[in-house]
């Protein structure tokens, strides 16, 4: 592997990592604060992408689409929190999984009814569509750098929100003892709705950003959701810091594995077999990583409760 390839792949891994962080942050907050497993988080990602593509197509501006996508995802999140999730907090995780899985189906079918079965077309904004030259000489899309920048900004923003603001204080309090903050007179229902909508907005942001790179289509959220679950399990369920570290770890391991493992196996077997075998092992790499981490730290890297 050349220097240029390593630099480019490191950035690709980082970009995948911050995208996963946008998903995982909401997922882990919702689990940490409310104890809720939300499988429908991937659907909120899809809502963000579809609304962004649709509004961008109608107005001609990616930025308006991006804001609309975030707003729509937040609104959809608030709606399902009030309409469905509230009834599930007291129930066990199996009921939550069942109900939120049903939401996946509802969102997928609803999206198909509104937007049709065809993938939508979302182009990246002209201002970000060029490329810059990396050290090592390879050109790299500005848009992917912008995603990395956005992800870092969101991580810093979340850190400040949680550690420095009143809302953040309540979120932390809700994580450690939800009965007590209710007893202290804090409107726990509103807090839950706000946290859920915040997580949904981040998922919508991720969907809209990635939608311009990939195709905006039904079911686009579920593969990302699975990775996001791996991330929060690695990072420690409920920990935003864990989600950040876990995301970058998963992003880099996945990206490097896809290139590195086939090369590695080529040392020991014929090229054609090595690429097939390497590709198969690479697609398992992050799960192997998760298993290895759980052996050493069964509650993830940054366990929250106890």
């Amino acid at each position, binding site marked *: 592997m050349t220097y240029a390839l390593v630099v480019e792949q490191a950035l690709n891994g980082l970009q995948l990592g911050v995208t996963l962080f946008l998903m995982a942050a909401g997922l882990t907050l919702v689990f940490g604060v409310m104890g809720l497993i939300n499988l429908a988080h991937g659907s909120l990602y899809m809502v963000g992408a579809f609304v962004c593509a649709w509004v961008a197509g109608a107005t001609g501006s990616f930025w308006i689409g991006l804001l609309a996508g975030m707003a729509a995802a937040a609104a959809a999140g608030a709606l399902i929190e009030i309409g469905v999730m509230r009834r599930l907090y007291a129930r066990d995780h199996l009921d939550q999984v069942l109900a939120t899985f049903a939401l996946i189906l509802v969102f997928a079918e609803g999206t*198909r009814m509104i937007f049709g079965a*065809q993938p939508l077309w979302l182009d990246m904004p002209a201002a970000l569509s060029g490329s810059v030259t990396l050290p090592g000489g*390879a050109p790299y899309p500005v848009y992917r750098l912008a995603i990395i920048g956005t992800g870092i900004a969101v991580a810093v923003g979340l850190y400040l929100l949680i550690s420095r603001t009143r809302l953040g204080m309540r979120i932390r309090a809700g994580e450690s003892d939800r009965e007590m903050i209710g007893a202290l007179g804090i409107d726990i229902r509103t807090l839950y709705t706000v946290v859920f909508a915040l997580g949904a907005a981040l998922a919508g942001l991720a969907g809209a950003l990635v939608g311009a*790179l990939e195709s905006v289509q039904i079911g686009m959220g579920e593969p990302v959701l699975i990775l996001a679950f791996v991330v929060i399990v690695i990072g420690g369920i409920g920990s935003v810091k864990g989600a950040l570290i876990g995301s970058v770890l998963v992003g880099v391991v996945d990206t490097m594995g896809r290139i590195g493992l086939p090369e590695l196996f080529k040392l020991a077997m014929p090229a054609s077999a090595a690429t097939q075998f390497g590709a198969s092992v690479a*697609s398992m790499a992050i799960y192997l990583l998760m298993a290895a981490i759980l052996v050493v730290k069964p509650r993830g890297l940054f366990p929250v409760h106890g």
Partner: protein
Amino acid sequence: MFRTVGAATVALGMALSGAQAQEPVKVGMITTLSGGGSHLGIDVRDGFLLAIEMSGRSDIEVIVEDDARKPDVAKQLADRMVQLDKVDIMTGIIWSNLALAVVPSVTGQGTFYLSPNAGPSQLAGAGCSPLYFNYAWQNDMLHEGVGAYMKEAGFASPVVMAPNYPAGKDAISGFKRMFGDDVNSEIYTKLGQTDYAAEIAQIRASGADSVYFFLPGGMGIAFMKQYAAADVGIPIYGPAFSFDEIILGAVGDAAIGAVNTSQWAYDLDNAANARFVAAFQEKYGRMPTLYAQQGYDTALGILAALEVAHPSDAAAFQAALEAAEFESPRGPFAFGPNHHPIENIYVREVVAGDGKPTNKLVGIAIEGHSDSYGADCKM
């Protein structure tokens, strides 16, 4: 006066005699109308129904059902159509794994199956059946077309890329059958993968002079957009599956310049094609894809055979299907001994179009091409 009417009636009766005076024909179509990849099924259905409508025949009943791309659903629907609805002919399946679940049992129960799309090697070789016909291609054929074209064009070291699943491996072996084994490198991606940044970096670093890829559906959309944004500058080639008119609409200008192979092109210059494209656009208000042409041809094949025999007379109807006496929009068309097409594989280039890019016919990759599994077929 009465005599004239009587004579006209007799004449009409004679014209309708033979095949058409027999009982009506039932066609069961199972195809993918919902979920990912549904635009393939929708176009097959629309092309098929268009040909039936244009024929003006009212004695053909078509039952259409959605398999949602699930093999178990397709199997259940097929059993119901064969046993309960007692259809004479089955058609419609898009995906090879569904076809393998359905076709052997349909033909095993003595019902004709005419494939408008899926052409897995098993059904072209040892698993062939006298009652099975394919109106599209054997799966490898378009990949072989790309291989032949790129070799002809003088490329020496392509990167070849496909998802790590059976059809992906078949695609690469089909490509190499014509191009030769001497490629720059092979990349296998995860099925359903949507981010290709790692692969694009690898392609850039490979020193290849060209890229051949097979990434059907959403995977291809994602790859092409990212590939164009990454400014790699190495020309890309692939089968038409990644470049149909619907996908080009989603990819946008990023696809311009890509070259792909197809058994058909909407700008092929022949009368049957002009008629098909005009009728399809008038009825559905969009440009037909290769899938629409495949559905259309499947119906033309049935219509032509019905002029000679009814499916209840299996031997006669099979012979009539084999003759394939119809004008295909793709130009020359005939069946090989394993009931798979002998046809031209055309080369198309993606060019800027009206609002979205479109395909332009640029030449022929392989003339009169047939698949390489016929030798294993013992009917």
